[in-house]
């Protein structure tokens, strides 16, 4: 039996006597699925953000966001994200360096990587309970933290718990990418440890570090379950308010406010993630 010739795109020339469907048909189920459950909802959010509840196009949903209450929400989100991203990034970088400077196949490294994989997913409701058990104001086993319910530091501590492992996962490859020869060459040329980090290690790691920080920022921005489990009566950040707007039993379910807020979030996350991807590409340029 002769091998069917395949072209670059994998298209198969039609068999004599039988016409086979074009190969892209195989992508239809996936496209349909993501179309309905990913693209459509996103489109609905963007669409509804500009619709009046009664129909018709409007900017008023967006401009209605310009109240001090909503501004406080965005500021709160920014505060929490900046704090948890910066602290998470710095601490995570330190931990990543500690892991990277050990044996490549050592037990410690594998343990920390596996742990990071698990902990980065450990969020939400369960994590809030765990912290409640540790330092909750009435029930903490370690001690009682009066500031546990303070915004932003109480919740930021919990966010940092999953930000650090994420940082390790994302930043460790960059540290691994620092070739030992560069360090040795710098020494050979008369450089001290400080010189190495100032002129070589630092500049090389900076794009990756900034990119990872942005990723942590987006991660904190999108978090919902953790902060709702921590405090569900007062909305400090945008995601909480979106949830409230969706569930609200006051009158109609307030779609349009939820959509407007969600649209605002999309804009923020898209900006941050674009920065992340650009910085990643910049960092990868030197990883040849």
């Amino acid at each position, binding site marked *: *039996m002769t*091998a069917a010739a*395949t072209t670059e*795109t*994998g*298209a198969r020339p039609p068999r004599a006597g039988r016409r086979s469907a074009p*190969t*892209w048909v*195989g*992508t239809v189920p*996936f*496209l349909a*699925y*993501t179309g309905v*459950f*990913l693209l*459509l*909802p*996103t489109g*609905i*959010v963007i669409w509804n953000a500009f619709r009046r509840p009664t129909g018709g196009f409007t900017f008023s949903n967006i401009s209605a966001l310009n109240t001090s209450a909503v501004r406080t929400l965005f500021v709160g989100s920014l505060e929490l994200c900046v704090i948890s991203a910066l602290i998470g990034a710095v*601490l995570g970088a*330190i931990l990543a360096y500690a892991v990277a*400077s050990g*044996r*490549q196949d050592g037990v410690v490294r594998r343990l920390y990587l*596996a742990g990071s994989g*698990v902990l980065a*997913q*450990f969020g*939400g*409701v*369960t994590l809030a*309970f*765990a912290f409640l*058990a*540790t330092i909750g104001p009435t*029930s903490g*086993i*370690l001690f009682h933290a009066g500031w546990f319910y303070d915004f932003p530091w109480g919740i930021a501590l919990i966010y940092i*718990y999953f930000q*650090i492992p994420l940082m390790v996962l994302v930043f460790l490859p960059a540290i691994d990418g620092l070739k*030992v020869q560069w*360090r*040795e060459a710098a020494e050979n040329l008369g450089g001290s440890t400080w010189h190495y980090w100032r002129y070589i290690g630092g500049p090389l790691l900076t794009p990756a570090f900034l990119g990872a920080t942005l990723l942590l920022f987006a991660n904190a*921005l*999108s978090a*919902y*379950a953790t902060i*709702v*489990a921590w405090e*569900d009566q007062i909305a400090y950040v945008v995601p909480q308010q979106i*949830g409230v707007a*969706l*569930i609200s039993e006051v009158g109609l379910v307030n*779609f349009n406010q*939820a959509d407007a807020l969600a649209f605002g979030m*999309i804009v923020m996350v*898209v900006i941050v*993630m674009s920065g992340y991807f650009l910085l990643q590409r910049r960092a990868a340029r030197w990883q040849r």
Partner: protein
Amino acid sequence: MAAVNEIPALGVPAEPQAPQGVRGLRASQRRRLNAFRYVAFTIFGLFFLLPLFAMIRFSLEGSKPGTWSVAAWKQIASYQGPPPLLPAIEITLELAVITSLVMLVLVVPTMIWVKLRVQWFSRVLEFLCLLPLTIPAIVLVVGLAPIYNRIERYNVSALMLFWAYVILALPYAYRALTAGLTAMDATTLSEAARSLGARWFTVMFRVIAPNMWQAILNALMLTVALVLGEFTIAYPLTYVNLQVELFSISRNTVNAGVLFSASAATLLVAFALLLILSYVGRRLRRGRP
């Protein structure tokens, strides 16, 4: 990595007792680095383990403070609430299974098919699979609300959440599966199989898929871990799953022991999945030539 640099500078193990001689500079540098590492691992280790220990300790707390009891763990199945926990556990487990099945049936074949036959689509595929990372779940649920409202009319249960869960799991599954696909030379394998007369169905399911079973397993475990911990889609849509129920319990009875035992159990399950995966992966890697 330079092949001949026999001793990679960063990876030198701690030297044993060397004979007296000219030593010092680099050894002391190495000692300082090791000291830093041990301190760092200890501090971070404590930070990460303490909440877990607290949770487990709390779950083993008896009726009088300071006593031990496994009552909270037994309650996982028996807790009546309000609200009762067991139905939520069942639903969540079922959701995990259904989501995994859909992932197996929809995503895996599509990825293989695209890799083999529709390469130009792979960029689109990557974009779609990684998009959920950029569209937060809390935003997605706002757009899903009208869609789920339509479905509601047919009076279906929380199991309908699986439609959204597959989307949420896409980025993680995609990365795991891509790693598996690129590790094996899928194109060459498929060409070899085709030249032996295999039809595409056979190539995909009897040649390619079995060769990436670790990646598939990895993707499934990530999916299950995600479903077990999911809250953000279920709660605003007023469905009841494990996390939502735990949340409701906590609002009713603030320090119910079952909260901590159930949370600890979820974590242990996720950890066990990870261990199974790495264990099985290692066994097979050793067995392979």
